[in-house]
């Protein structure tokens, strides 16, 4: 079984600042995928970014980028130029074909005006 750990229950930054959310995982799988999901107050889970474990290049989606350190089993999310609409719960998740999706406990990110 896999485990996903998010050590920051809550974070708060000012609008336009850059913020990094941390995530570590543990697995014996060699072929897997990592995701960051966003859950705003509307409850709708939204996929923010995806990283294939076999790719060394860090994934980037507009203001969102990851720092994927495979040897350290670390997968942090960086949000640049943060906006009020980024306020949400952020869940790190691990997927492998054997076990499907495993979520971390989440980080509540608050963007202050």
């Amino acid at each position: 079984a896999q485990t996903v750990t998010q050590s920051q229950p809550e974070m708060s930054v000012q609008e336009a600042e850059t913020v990094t959310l941390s995530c570590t995982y543990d697995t014996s799988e060699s072929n897997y995928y990592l995701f960051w999901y966003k859950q705003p107050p509307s409850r709708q889970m939204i996929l923010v970014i995806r990283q294939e474990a076999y790719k060394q290049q860090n994934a980037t989606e507009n203001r969102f980028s990851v720092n994927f350190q495979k040897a350290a089993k670390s997968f942090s999310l960086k949000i640049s130029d943060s906006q009020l609409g980024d306020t949400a719960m952020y869940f790190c998740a691990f997927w492998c074909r054997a076990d499907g999706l495993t979520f971390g406990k989440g980080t509540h990110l608050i963007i202050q005006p």
Partner: protein
Amino acid sequence: SAVISQKPSRDICQRGTSLTIQCQVDSQVTMMFWYRQQPGQSLTLIATANQGSEATYESGFVIDKFPISRPNLTFSTLTVSNMSPEDSSIYLCSVEDDWGGPYNEQFFGPGTRLTVL
């Protein structure tokens, strides 16, 4: 991507009653999942529902408490039976898009917020 709707979006129920939550997908999918998200917590998988077979329940969840139906490839229901206040949670339906690629992306419904008094 799949578009998922859930009914009801929220409900307030009395202890001892049951509530059935519906999940409708706009495309045919093989795998559907039901999650529970307790207040301020992460998502916990209740069961996996494949069309034409019994749902597979995760440890700590049983069919008598959370019966699931999966009559076709676009629809599923989850019933929360004999409810107690501890069942107050958000219940999310999710589907897996098996597009033939190396991984299966999951899409989530908007959730049903259940409050049990």
